[in-house]
């Protein structure tokens, strides 16, 4: 392998944590199995679109608008990091 490709590394998958304010993404998968159960129940199903709606004043927690319904979910950044996005 060339040194250039080693530098590029494998791209780390983007998660909900990486969304910018107002940006949307589609859920690809949930990383933490135990947390996934809770997130699934709250409507974060793979294939669902989520939009980063707001951040708490200190940057954490955040709120997401889940799906196309007017449903807002609040979660910590560490929890958002377990929700991976499709490219």
């Amino acid at each position, binding site marked *: 392998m060339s040194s250039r490709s080693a530098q590029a590394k494998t791209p780390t998958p983007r998660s909900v944590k990486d969304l910018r304010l107002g940006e949307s993404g589609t859920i690809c998968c949930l990383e933490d199995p135990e*947390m996934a*159960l*809770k997130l699934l129940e709250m*409507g974060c199903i793979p294939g669902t679109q989520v939009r980063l709606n707001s951040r*708490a*004043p200190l940057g954490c927690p955040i709120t997401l608008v889940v799906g196309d319904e007017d449903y807002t*979910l609040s979660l*910590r950044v560490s929890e958002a990091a377990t929700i991976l996005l499709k490219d």
Partner: protein
Amino acid sequence: MARATLISDPTGAAASALTLEALRDVPPRSHRELTRIALIGNPNSGKSSLFNQLTGLNQKVGNFPGVTVDRKTGISQLTPQHRAEIIDLPGTYSLYPKSLDEKVITDLLYDKGSDQYPDFVVITVDASNLRRNLLLFTQLADLGLPAVLALNMMDVAEQHGVQIDIMALQQELGVPIIPMNARKGVGIAALKIVMSRQLGAPTVSFFEPSEDLLPMIRQIRYYFNLHNDYLALHYAHQFRQISFLTADEKAYIAELVEKYDFKPTPRQAQETIDRYARINDILLNTVTVVRTEKNEPYSNKLDKILTHKVWGYLIFFGILFLMFQAVFAWASYPMELIDEGVTWINQLVQTNFDGPLVNLLTEGVLAGLGGVLIFIPQIALLFAFIAVLEETGYMARVTFMMDRIMRKFGLNGKSIVPLISGVACAVPAIMSARTIENWKDRIITIFVTPLMSCSARIPVYTVLIALVVPPQKVLGIFNLQGIALMGLYLLGFFAAIFSAWLLKLILRTQNKSYFIMEFPVYRWPRWKNVGITIVEKVKTFVFQAGKVIVAISVILWVLASYGPGNALEQAETRVRATAAQQRLSAEETDIRIASEKLENSYAGLFGRTLEPAIRPLGFDWKIGIALITSFAAREVFVGTISTIYSVGQDADMRTVQQKLAAEKDDNGQPFFTPARAFSLLVFYVFAMQCMSTLAVVYRETKGWKWPLMQLLYMTGLAYVSSLLVYQLFK
């Protein structure tokens, strides 16, 4: 579309009529039986509003058998002939419990043999948020319990452009649906009629356990004699947490789970995904969403201000300030009234009757009762504020803003409310910690809240500060005494935060602390709900905490009124003899008798016994008595000191201070040196001297473990701190 007329009917009256028409052939329940109905639904689906509408003030709070969670029940008059017992279950998103609260639901619904097993369930769903709300519904329907769907918040759905074909949905879901608006009372009558009928089980199922699980499921079904596969599957998922299963039964399921290599987590995830797929299909045929424009909900706009990094905190502190103002200032008028009322009754009894029994009644029972009743205005006001903040959805925003800060100390965003209320009184503050779902966060919050300096410490603080801190100006504007007072409040606050952090390191818990929660939409509070909350909290406080407080006051009264043998009579004759010699007035004699009697009572004996232990802190036996009596409530300190230093009961603060200042030690030097005074102050900052708090912690944690630990920890902290202060400064 053909269904246009039906779906645009906001009250749902037409649909209710159709539902009721379909139920015409369903027989009503027998008149004599009291139907048991469980109310279940997502948080924020309007369950409490519905419960309050159905039961009004016919509510009572008890315990679920064997579980440390409150159980709210109420009686509802369904029709003139039918009454039902409504059980309000904690809000949940699914039948896979994540908290102690949610476990209550599965314990109730999985045990058909229980005498608490409901005849059927009313499932509330938020019509504006059907997809997620139907998840719980489909799980409940698959359990095979007779059910009715209360399709709540039809008005909100209408506003959001959500149109629901109710008849089609009823067809798809296989249960009667009552469209309603519980906050306004729309649809309640129709729901009550349906509830009075002999309902059958739902006719549609939503999820079939996968084929490869059937052998295991069949064996569980057979072993436990269960009526359906899905229930058996839940046994396999949750047997460890189901409290009514015996050890043998759990072992049996564990064996099966092992044998069939059953992996609960992926199975549960797949089930949830499958259910959502099914729900999507159903909604495709029954719900249309007409969006007039990109309708940014007004909640989002409000949030831009209310959770703003500057305005958000300013508004929050403004609201806090108003709350303090209410609890301290506004509440003082009704509190005075109650105080005067109790005093008046007391005097009435004292002037009309006589004897030791009367003394017990007035100084023990009535004094104790007065100590309870006087908190009612504070509790009512505080809970009015908290109920309004909860009802409007603002509380969720506060916790959102504070979570990051509080988490560092093992608390969580929701702990901020109890901590702040604790400055007024720890009793309602600890009760408000119930909004914290996570067990560990809640226990820590309850544990540290009494360290916040409550209003009962104020008299002690002011008397002692005035004694040893000169009223000097510092830097031109600050008053030295004011700074000392603020220092004591800060000391309490930091002790609370530090203790929380300590406890965070010690406590182990299985359930993870989540902050995954729905952000509710802002709404106007329903005043009826607020009113019911106030009445319920006050009632709970008076009856539950009151029992313990009265008992303790009676014990304290006995200890202070009796002594070994005839020690008290001897004390009195001794005082009378010397009083005659010194020509004291009748009043002065009485005061001295009271003081002398106290010294020779059991309480006085305890003070003497205690003296060696508290001498290193700079205290003598007189302070010892004050410590014992003010153990019930800190306010008692000043009164006790007054009696001991032979000051009349109703003397104002200055005379107490003069007496304290005049008190000499064995060498003839002033007794209350700054070291002694600060030692005593620090003791009062930390020590758990409040029976009411202990009683309420007992009630909230349903056991003696936590109140006793709190008592030991706080008293220990107080002792060590006092010791350090005195030894360093003497």
